[in-house]
């Protein structure tokens, strides 16, 4: 479904991503791991169009999407959530998700119908699936961190994506919240048939739910393979799993 082929991205003299390669098959849960500064978030930014690649190809469903603006890439079926909470703090929880749903339904430019009556069903269904329906009227900025991270995922679901990219979905969460979020991700993958690409620091989580793992270091791909292959790879053990 998604192939990243030897993609480079540099900031000034620093090569943030240097020949990264990644394959995501339809319906898979794929994890990207690597130490801080390995280029994981930059890679996600390249895939979603927030940054432009210097070299290489990013192919989604047979089409090179490198160079498209983020809103075009989103319309092709890729949604993302952010490592640092990135929501609409002044809007209500309901409106946060509705903005994405309206965009997906191509109704964002509708000028004269009251928004509160549009896309209500779809928005509520998404809020229900992440467990935020009870708080739909709260202002998003007043939610707890854990709830904001879940809202983060809910907004990404508003576009009915085929590929959902999650950048450290459990960062800053308590162990219980982390557990609940991982359950949520697994459920989304199985129920909606979503393809999920995520990065995460907690190795227990990664090895428990990912079907394929890509390991990055210094912007390069060391290996991509099944959890067993990755675990037994010498270079990975030295670089990452046992090394630090």
């Amino acid at each position: 479904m998604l192939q990243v082929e030897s993609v480079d991205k540099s900031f000034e003299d620093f090569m943030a991503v240097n020949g990264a390669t990644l394959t995501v098959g339809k319906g898979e849960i794929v994890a990207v791991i690597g130490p801080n500064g390995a280029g994981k978030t930059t890679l996600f930014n390249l895939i979603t169009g927030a940054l432009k690649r210097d070299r290489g190809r990013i192919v989604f469903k047979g089409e090179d999407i490198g160079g498209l603006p983020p809103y075009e890439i989103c319309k092709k079926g890729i949604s993302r959530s952010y490592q640092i909470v990135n929501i609409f703090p002044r809007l209500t929880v309901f409106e946060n998700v509705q903005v994405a749903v309206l965009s997906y339904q191509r109704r964002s430019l509708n000028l004269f119908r009251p928004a509160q009556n549009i896309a209500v069903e779809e928005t509520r269904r998404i809020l229900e699936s992440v467990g935020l329906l009870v708080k739909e009227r709260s202002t998003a900025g007043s939610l707890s961190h854990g709830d904001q991270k879940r809202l983060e995922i809910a907004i990404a679901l508003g576009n009915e994506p085929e590929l959902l990219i999650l950048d450290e979905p459990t960062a800053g969460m308590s162990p219980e919240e982390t557990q609940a979020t991982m359950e949520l991700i697994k459920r989304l993958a199985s129920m909606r048939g979503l393809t999920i690409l995520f990065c995460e620091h907690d190795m227990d989580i990664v090895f428990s739910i990912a079907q394929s793992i890509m390991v990055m270091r210094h912007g390069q791909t060391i290996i991509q393979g099944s959890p067993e292959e990755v675990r037994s790879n010498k270079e990975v053990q030295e670089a990452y799993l046992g090394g630090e």
Partner: protein
Amino acid sequence: MFKEVIRSKWFGPSVVIFLILFVLPSFIPRFYTYILALIYVTSLLAMSLNLVVGHGGMFQFHHAVFYGVGAYTVALMLKKTSLPMWTGFVAGPIVAAFTGLIIGWLCVRLTRLYFGMLQISLGSLIWAIVLRWYSFTGGDDGIPGIPVPPFLSSQNNSYYFILIILVICLIIMYLILRSPFGNTLQAIRDNPQRCEAVGINVKRHQLIAIVIATFFAGVAGVLFVVLERSVFTDLLFWVLSLEVFIMCLLGGWFTFIGPVLGAAIIVALRTFVGIFTEYWTLILGVVLILLIFFLPEGVMGYVQELFKPRTREATEGGHR
């Protein structure tokens, strides 16, 4: 779609206020009728600016230009052409919106402060053209003695006309802000990056908001001509833009009706302070300083904040 307006909790009080304002000219001196009408015109200008500043998060520093363009368009058409008068009234807002489209198209490429700086420069360019083009615009003499349609000849009639147009515009703006377009615009204000990531063409959306806002600024310009029957270059000068910006901040730029309040306060202050001193801008400066320190969300923002804790407790209490 008007059900939305009628169901609003503000509908009842608004109708009462409207009726009071409508009968008021029969009971107050001419001068106060004039000041009220001036407040309405300025309110519409401030409301139109707030569409882009408060709800759209764009630093439209030089908004008065579009007000001036609207006013000059109708003035020139009424004075220099023999076309039916209504065409001038229609052309004012349209030409203002078209100017907004061109300036906006250039400005939305930039963000935040850079947007504002370019906007000021381009706006000042139009001001300079109007100031220098004596043969066409009258330069700093302006255009006095603009003929208006007979039904607007009495002051009270023009008062009613201005009030009714203001109310119609406010209703349309209210509907726009509650539409998917308006919600999305406010989402862009809060977080443009995230909006791009959910598939919204942020720049196009912002440009449409600018065109809508400048259209209403043009309407305000037309109403100014109805009230004053003359135009002058101060209408496009950046000092007026600053005043209007302050009206939005003062009234409460995250609220719907705040700018009307801000316009009322500033116009009243300017009128009555102007009787005692010519240093009006000094007073304006003091108002701005006090505002920044004590009412960062404006008067309406402060009023809403007073009522907020209760509603928040209520919603959270309902959930847990």
